[in-house]
């Protein structure tokens, strides 16, 4: 469904050194620097897949999505989405894709969202019966209620996001690009958005590429992730395998009835945190059983959990690893 080969995107950025003299000089002669936003990225996405595009700020996630939707022209490389070249902005292509930019609003501000829906109905050439059916489904899945009949400016951020998602889907796209769709939303709304995306994907077989800084979004929605670091692909595969590879240890959280000495913990595993009544350990999965047995025998445990390490830490480690590798490698 989506094929990206050796995608490269360079931007010419005007860099102005500080100082008044430099400012004056820049009026006459500007110096441009090339910033490589996307660096030789290749991947393939099958129809109906949900993948997460991860990376720190400036890693090239949004740029990649914009190239895939035809908003940005690549410097080099080949891109095909649903059999089209996005750059050509063919009508058939535009009718099949949808891009949601979490921080930018598509809804008309002064009018109810329903007016934006209607405008999209006309632009996309959707028949009224089809439109009514789609709207019924979206209202049901998103629990819009009467939100779409109130002026957009009167809605809260979460309510607006629901209407934004509805507006993005009026034309029943088969490919969804979601750029930080849950940013700024409260937890309840984040859950709602995640549930919605999953249901939409399952019901319609829509291909979803999602970027997010909230790891919970990724864990909930994306069996497969592509990690971008400084514009290049650092990892492409299942999320589980990534976690296991980077941080194979299991995280054991012990809540104690009384304090213990560090010496008592040394043999169990690597101590991440040692608060008076709580201890967090990273333990080699092969040794989980023995470690737990020893801990239960030796320590005054009130409560015990075994979990995967937090994804944020995993990501941080990946990026740190990449940075170190770059620093060590000859440039």
């Amino acid at each position: 469904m989506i094929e990206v080969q050796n995608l490269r995107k360079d931007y010419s950025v005007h860099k102005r050194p500080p100082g008044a003299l430099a400012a004056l000089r820049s009026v006459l002669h500007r110096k441009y620097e090339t910033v490589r936003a996307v660096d030789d990225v290749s991947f393939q996405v099958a129809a109906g897949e949900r993948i997460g595009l991860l990376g720190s700020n400036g890693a090239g996630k949004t740029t990649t999505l914009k190239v895939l939707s035809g908003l940005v022209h690549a410097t080099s490389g080949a891109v095909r989405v649903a059999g089209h070249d996005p750059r050509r902005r063919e009508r058939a292509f535009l009718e099949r894709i949808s891009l949601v930019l979490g921080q930018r609003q598509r809804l008309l501000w002064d009018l109810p969202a329903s007016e934006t829906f209607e405008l999209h109905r006309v632009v996309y050439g959707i028949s009224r019966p089809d439109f009514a059916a789609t709207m019924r489904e979206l209202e049901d899945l998103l629990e819009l209620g009467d939100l779409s009949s109130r002026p957009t400016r009167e809605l809260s951020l979460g309510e607006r996001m629901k209407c934004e998602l509805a507006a993005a889907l009026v034309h029943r796209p088969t490919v969804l690009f979601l750029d930080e769709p849950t940013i700024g939303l409260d937890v309840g709304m984040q859950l709602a958005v995640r549930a919605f995306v999953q249901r939409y994907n399952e019901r319609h077989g829509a291909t979803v590429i999602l970027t997010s800084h909230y790891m919970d979004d990724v864990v909930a929605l994306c069996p497969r992730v592509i990690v971008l670091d400084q514009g290049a692909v650092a990892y492409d595969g299942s999320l589980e395998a990534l976690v296991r590879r980077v941080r194979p240890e299991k995280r054991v959280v012990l809540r104690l009835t009384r304090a213990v000495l560090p010496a008592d913990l040394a043999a169990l595993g690597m101590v991440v945190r040692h608060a008076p009544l709580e201890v967090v350990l990273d333990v080699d999965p092969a040794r989980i059983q023995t470690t737990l047995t020893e801990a239960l025998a030796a320590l005054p445990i009130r409560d015990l959990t075994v979990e995967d390490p937090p994804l944020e830490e995993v990501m941080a480690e990946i990026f740190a690893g990449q940075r170190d590798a770059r620093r060590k490698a000859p440039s």
Partner: protein
Amino acid sequence: MPRYLRLFLAQLRISLLVSAQYRVDFLVDGAIEILWTSTALAPLIVVFASRDRIAGWSFGEALIVVGFFTLLQALLEGVLNPSFVAVAEHVRKGTLDYVLLLPADAQFLVSTGRFHVWRSVNVLTAAGIFVVGFRELGRAPTLASAAFGLTLFAVAAILMHSLWTLAMCTVFYAVKADQITDVLSATLDASRWPSSVFRGGTRLVLTFVVPLGLMTTVPARAFLGDEGVLLPCVALLEAVALALIARVVWRRAIARYTSASS
């Protein structure tokens, strides 16, 4: 109904609803439009009280030119300049991307982005001016000359739109929208007089380079039955040429935007 007509009506409807939201008083705003149009007539009325001709044009004939000027002004201030401001807002807020994602021609969407519907009262004012003008002349236009005049007005509208598109593309190079719309309005102002009011080099420039003369004087003469074939052909050719140039400039501006935006 053809697709783009439906789209035009949908965009118009949105603007009407927004105006209603902001409680735009169509009556009061319409009245103010009529007031402004009469300021264009004041000099003519005062001068024609003491003489018969200005630069070879009689009162009735001059009114026909003012009529076409009023129609063009209704187009500029009612559709084009408000849309200009809308595009500038899109670029500023970064939401032009959403416009470019829609499966319709972006230049069309952007040209019809916003309407100030109350300014369309000037269409009625223009009709009134035509009526008064022909009454002054003591005759009515023939069907042929009416058709000719209105066709040339359509050509003038295309010229106006192309000039506006060229000005609008500057918005991608970060210029303030308000200033450019003021410059456009001021430029159109010079088309309120018959082009023979200007002399020599100025007249040539204002007829062919910034084709104001082609936009009001030529349709007026056609409406009056006084126009030949040469200038209308020039007008048509220039309209086509300018439209093509504007289209190319527009695509270049969008290409620059799509390559440069991040």
